[in-house]
């Protein structure tokens, strides 16, 4: 089945929404059956027959009782739907982080996701790891235009708007990889700003945290030298080295990720090489510039990046 089906929730906000939507769907289905039934009946029963001739049917101008009936009943339906919606709305929007909740700050960029875990001192990009069975509360910021964080099986979407911090939360009760993507048009490569949320067991999550907290192994490889002396360091950070740029994703633990370019390509040597030499071939219109390096240098940098675990 679809990995992004809103009717396959694994987290409380998504589940509350499914509950509400079933009520709404059932109500609207009943309304549809009744009104469509009336329409079908009228369309068939009152069609003019050839034998009708020129006589006009009796002219009926209105009826107060009938108008009252079909005003009052819809008003009652509206009230019921409104109350149900308000209850779920409040339960999701007013939720406070319980003790032990994880805090993550998500910053949207054209066209990638930045993740910071302030209490764990972790900065990473594009692939979000959270522990199962625990609430994760997310602060949503933007570095440039509007974006929207939408992982349907985990919760409804909330926008990332510059100068307007937002909050959302998830509490997945199943492990696995949950997919989504940016849901507010943000420019040329909006379509490839994909979301990958890894819900880990407690042990796997702790292991991932330890990996992320290690600084990069500092060395003297040719690739690292080239990386540190070209414009790469203007945009990217590799902690423990001279690279401290903030415009692009943090690469310190690049090889712990399964994809690159916010999910647009698998994290393989071949794709890394292509991404560095010709980003437009992978994600045309992304903000990664073609670095104009020769093949040997790109090879060296790729070798270096492959050491970033």
């Amino acid at each position, binding site marked *: 089945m679809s990995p992004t089906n809103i009717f396959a929730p694994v987290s409380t906000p998504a589940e509350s929404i499914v509950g509400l939507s079933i009520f709404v769907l059932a109500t*609207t289905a009943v309304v549809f059956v009744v009104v469509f039934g009336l329409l079908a009946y009228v369309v068939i029963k009152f069609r003019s027959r050839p034998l009708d001739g020129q006589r006009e049917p009796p002219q009926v101008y209105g009826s107060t009782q009938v108008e009252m009936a079909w005003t009052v009943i819809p008003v009652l339906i509206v009230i019921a739907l409104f109350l149900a919606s308000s209850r779920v709305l409040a339960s999701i929007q007013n939720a406070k982080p319980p003790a032990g909740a994880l805090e993550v700050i998500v910053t949207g960029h054209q066209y990638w996701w930045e993740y910071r875990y302030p209490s764990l001192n972790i900065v990473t990009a594009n692939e979000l790891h959270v522990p199962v069975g625990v609430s994760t509360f997310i602060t949503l910021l933007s570095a440039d235009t509007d974006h929207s964080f939408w992982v349907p099986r985990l919760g409804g979407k909330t926008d990332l708007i510059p100068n307007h911090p937002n909050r959302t939360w998830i509490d997945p009760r199943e492990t696995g990889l949950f997919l989504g*993507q940016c849901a507010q048009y943000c420019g040329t490569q909006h379509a490839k700003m994909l979301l990958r949320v890894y819900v880990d067991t407690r042990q796997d999550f702790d292991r991932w945290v330890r990996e992320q907290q290690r600084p990069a192994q500092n060395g003297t490889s040719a690739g690292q030298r080239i990386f540190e002396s070209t414009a790469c360091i203007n945009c990217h950070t590799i902690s423990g080295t001279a690279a401290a740029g903030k415009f692009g994703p943090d690469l310190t633990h690049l090889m712990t990720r399964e994809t690159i370019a916010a999910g647009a390509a698998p994290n393989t040597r071949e794709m890394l090489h292509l991404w560095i030499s010709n980003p437009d071939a992978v994600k045309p219109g992304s903000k990664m510039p073609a670095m104009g390096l020769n093949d040997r240098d790109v090879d060296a940098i790729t070798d270096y990046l492959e050491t970033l675990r």
Partner: protein
Amino acid sequence: MSTSSLVLTQAQARPLTLRLHGWVTTVDHKRLGILYILYALVFLLAGGVEATIMRVQLIRPHNDFVSPQVFNRMFTMHGTTMIFFVAMPLVFGFANYLVPLMIGARDMAFPRLNAFSFWMTALGGLFLYFSFLGGDGLYGAGGAPDVGWFAYAPLTAKTFSVGHSTDFWTLSLFSSGIGSIGTAINLIATILCMRCPGMTLGKMPLFVWLNLVMAGLVIPTISPLSAAQLMLLVDRYLGGHFFDTQAGGSAVIWMHFFWIFGHPEVYVLVLPAFAFASEIIPVFSRKAIFGYPVMVVATVAIGFISMSVWAHHMFTVGMSAGANTFFVLSTMAIAVPTGIKIFNWLATMWGGKIRYATPMLFCVGFLFQFLIAGLTGVMLAAAPFDWQLANSYFVVAHFHYVIVGAILFCIFGAFYYWSPKVTGKMLDEMLGKLHFWLFFIGFHLTFDFMHIPGILGMPRRIYTYEPGRGWDVWNLIVSIGVIFQAAGVLVFVGNLIWSCFRGKRAGNDPWDAWTLEWSTSSPPPEYNYAVLPIARSRRPLWDLKHPEDPDWRYE
């Protein structure tokens, strides 16, 4: 010069240049109405091509029919074109042509303002399409806008939209906005001040009431859009900070200003569709409209409530729970008067003797589809549900269900119903039915199945999508539906052209109808009425045809 010059007859021997000059300088409401409608039909084809390009690109995942840059321009231009240069001109065109005739007047209140308004609207379309010239040269100095039809800040700031593409969008909407406000002023003054003797507000056809409320709605609706466009120009050219988030400005305030326009705008479009249905359904059911006073009150209620629902487009933006809750309530509330109207139309058909000529086929399609559109709207009004559905293909399906399934279907019906009056010739009934069925099939193939990818997590405005998300087969079906819709529209355009030359003569009153426009010749003389009529009831011609049972005994 009468409007029968639309039909080539041997009687008019004036040279082509003089005839064209007559059209370009006209202030006659009937000619301006025709100009609006022809203008809209040209842009309908342009917008249709843009839609087709998008659906070809989305027919399978990771398709490369067009680049992301081109695709993003396509959805921006498609939306802007269809709303501002197809739907609005059609609505204003029909109102222009029919309102004076229906109220027994000889023209609109301000004929020169009428012409000015049309040409300002036309200029807007020119601005928008001029943007295609110039291409990507030097920082994208040309190039069509690609910021989406609602152009959210700060994507429209100079930093994120270099070049002039956004400015073409801004100028286009500012210019056509002036035209819209001019037409609204004209309609209100005409309807309030120029009704024939005896036609009190309670005796006007519902068509006129609905256009009055529509015009009244245009005034507080378009003015916020014009203001927002001015602010955007200040930001882009004078270094202003209205929407500059880096200087403490707010991206959300653009959304508020835009949707304060954007939501009532859809009521500006749908009220005239209701107007068409409220004239066609009674005539083809052979019964007076059921509940005229309630229909008027419901219309006015819709007009007022529609100004209080705008932020249901912003449920995901992070407003407080209190604000979100208010907009849930107001949005659901508007379903009540809207539902009442559906019931009144059904009650009009109840006990009637329904004739299924092409206008009525389209109106029955409208009733069926508007019911569904309204119900998916109720789903979207439930804010938490909207947190999943917003900005997905479910919303795209919903609003196309309203704009195409309800509004365009009524407009098609209006064409078949009133073009005999305008041209003096009937449209071909067989081609009409073919048009209906082709378009009906295509519409449902595309827009029924489009709800599903939304439910399965597909956002809108993406130039391609990932395989393995379960969206592939639905996108394929959606794209196939385009073929049938295109075929239907081509049949329609062919029918329009063909009937101008070979259509059956219509006579004054081919449908045996009851409102004043059917008392004039087809087409009407330039002055409409040699002697102004005096109205005694809502259906003056019914009274004439049934002197033993006139309406004014029962109203």
